């Protein structure tokens, strides 16, 4: 009898979809389905997407701060209302320890169904491309047309779509306008401006610096030098499949450029940075809070914490132009996903997981709830909905920075670029040059060698 009811209902639902009012029909029908299936659990009925309507529970894992937690929980609530036969068990926490947790779960085959991942994790957790569920096979459920080709590439691994980018980010220059105004220095627009600003700052006071490239938080100095060298040579420093594009000489040139920055008082030396506040993040150091260090190169997705600090000191933070050489062969700046979602390759419920992901990433209702809690969404549907609900979005500095990168024809970051061992190699190179324990030539040689070693080890 119950089976009969559900069959009738799903037929009605199908008719409803055909008549073009699928949304509400799905809603009421699936509710009925859920009550039916909760009593007759062996029901094999599916909804209009071919998704089984047996009651299931999906485990969904993410990291973030309070805003993201609250927004996501709210979106989950809305999702459960819409699809009452899918329950979501939210497993969330801070970023501390999340990689450890995900790795352990992957190793133990106990990972959740839907997992938020970092860009560099994918290359390691899915070496052969089979570590996560092939999202292309679920494209009937996840509307992949909402992402452009390049953004989808980030989740590709050996030709298989392993994950999907929620938002993208790149590093831009940000300046403390209050300090620049005080010292009467223009906000730099080009590399030359930046070099000149260093000199001008030095003239005003030797503790004042127009910018800061620290290595602690993640190879900012090297990143800057890479962008410069890519502009100069038109070569990609590291290809998508892990081939080094630069020669040793070009690495030397990049390191020379960084050293030049130090000499021109654009940035403190690595030793000064360490001595001033150890490994503390820039936005938590006195030199930054007091406005003495008046610029930095940072991901658009993380600029918020810098802004928060300067706001509380009534200083103004502005987005600077991306410095690009006059005869640049490419823009040289990078873009990468700030975070991605993947579906566990061993999940029992791929379709339901896909339905949830599609809701989270594309649904207008969810987009409004989630806002920019995971950065500026890459999904066209999501950003459209967001612009509608948040007219002030375009004033947001993080939004502007994201767009600046998106519009500069950026280089897609290689999946190996953020690899932790690669980062160690960059940091070693920059530190040895800065400390003077190696010439730029020696440092470039060591760097090339250790990058090569790491890559042969991790690229398969």
């Amino acid at each position, binding site marked *: 009898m119950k089976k009969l009811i559900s069959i009738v209902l799903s037929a009605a639902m199908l008719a409803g979809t055909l008549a073009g009012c699928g949304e509400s029909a799905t809603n009421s029908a699936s509710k009925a389905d859920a009550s039916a299936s909760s009593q007759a659990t062996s029901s094999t009925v599916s909804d209009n997407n071919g998704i089984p309507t047996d009651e299931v529970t999906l485990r969904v894992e993410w990291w973030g*701060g309070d805003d993201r*937690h609250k927004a996501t929980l709210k979106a989950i609530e809305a999702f459960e209302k819409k699809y009452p036969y899918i329950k979501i068990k939210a497993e*969330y*926490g801070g970023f501390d320890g999340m990689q450890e947790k995900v790795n352990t779960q992957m190793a133990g085959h106990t990972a959740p169904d839907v997992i938020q991942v970092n860009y560099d994790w994918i290359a390691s957790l899915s070496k052969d491309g089979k570590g996560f569920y092939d999202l292309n096979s679920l494209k009937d459920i996840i509307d992949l047309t909402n992402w452009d080709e390049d953004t989808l590439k980030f989740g590709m691994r050996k030709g298989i779509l392993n994950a999907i980018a929620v938002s993208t980010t790149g590093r831009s220059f940000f300046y403390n306008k209050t300090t620049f105004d005080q010292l009467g220095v223009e906000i730099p627009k080009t590399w030359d401006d930046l070099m000149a600003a260093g000199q001008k700052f030095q003239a005003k006071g030797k503790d004042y610096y127009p910018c800061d490239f620290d290595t602690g938080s993640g190879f900012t100095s090297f990143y800057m030098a890479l962008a410069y060298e890519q502009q100069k040579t038109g070569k990609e420093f590291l290809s998508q499949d892990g081939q080094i594009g630069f020669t040793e000489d070009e690495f030397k040139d990049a390191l020379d450029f960084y050293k030049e920055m130090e000499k021109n008082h654009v940035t403190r030396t690595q030793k000064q940075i360490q001595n001033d506040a150890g490994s503390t993040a820039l936005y938590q150091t006195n030199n930054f*809070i007091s406005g003495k260090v008046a610029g930095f190169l940072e991901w658009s997705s993380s600029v918020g914490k*810098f802004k*928060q600090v300067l706001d509380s000191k009534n200083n103004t933070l502005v987005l600077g132009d991306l410095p690009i050489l006059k005869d640049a062969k490419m823009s040289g700046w990078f873009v990468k996903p700030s*975070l991605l979602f993947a579906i566990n390759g061993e999940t029992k419920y791929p379709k339901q997981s896909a339905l949830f992901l599609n809701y989270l990433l594309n649904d207008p209702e969810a987009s409004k709830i989630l806002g920019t809690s995971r950065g500026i969404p890459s999904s066209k549907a999501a950003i459209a909905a967001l612009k509608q609900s948040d007219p002030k979005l375009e004033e947001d500095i993080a939004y502007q920075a994201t767009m600046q990168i998106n519009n500069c024809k950026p280089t897609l970051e290689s999946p190996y670029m953020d690899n932790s061992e690669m980062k160690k190699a960059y940091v070693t190179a920059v530190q040895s040059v800065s400390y003077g324990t190696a010439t730029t030539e020696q440092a470039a040689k060591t760097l090339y060698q250790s990058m090569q070693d790491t890559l042969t080890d991790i690229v398969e």
Partner: protein
Amino acid sequence: MAARKRIGRILLYFVMILVSIVMLYPMIWLFGASFKSNADIHSSIWFMPSSFNWQPYINGWRTGSEYTMTHYFKNTFLMVIPIVVFTIVSSVLTAYGFARFEFPGKKLCFSLLIATMLLPSIVLRIPQYVMWSQFKVLDTYVPLVLPHLFASDGVFIFLLIQFFRNIPKELDEAARIDGCGRFKTLINILVPVIKPGVVSIGLFSFMWSMNDFLGPLIYVSSVEKYPVTIALRMSMDATGAGYDENQIIAMSIISLIPSIVVFALGQKQFVEGLTTGSVKG
């Protein structure tokens, strides 16, 4: 003579109070920092906030999750109290076995006990995780609590062995003459003597398991079951747009209170020992 003694006393107190300030300052600073903005937290070592606003405590207690801190504290105690009880019971028994009995394979067992402490625990995490997942007890406190029932704390066993060995065996023999069995001797005669040692391991196991982060992080995946250590870090997103640090500091102060109280109560046990100390007289 008496005057010299008095001056000595005053000097002693002066030094001890000075050191206390060095030791206590972090707590004082933490308390002040819980009322500061992010920028102020990182710009001065001086503890005084510009104003007192209890909002961080209120928001922190509410958390950004589905549960309040009350819930996470309950979880922590649900986990920590059995750990402490199990640790004390199993460590005392095992240490007694090692310290007061001769049996075949004792040397080997003791060597293994010490050896298990020498391997960095990080490298055991993943094999242990795989093992507990085979036992089908993930997302429970079992992997965190059960090993303590089986004297998994070599550190504590070794400590108690040292304490037992410092008691002359004549005490056992005297008890035996009085008709005490081995177990009764342990409970009635020996445990009271090594009470400072037992109290120490109780204190340590309480404070260490209160502070454990990586263990629960890996084994507990339901937010509903998170202990305080994990709940505390739940709003910290180093990769994101920033968070109110005062809120985390406020909650971390609260999470330290149980340890401080337990320590303050526990350390009193150390005064009631047999001695008046080497300084007396």
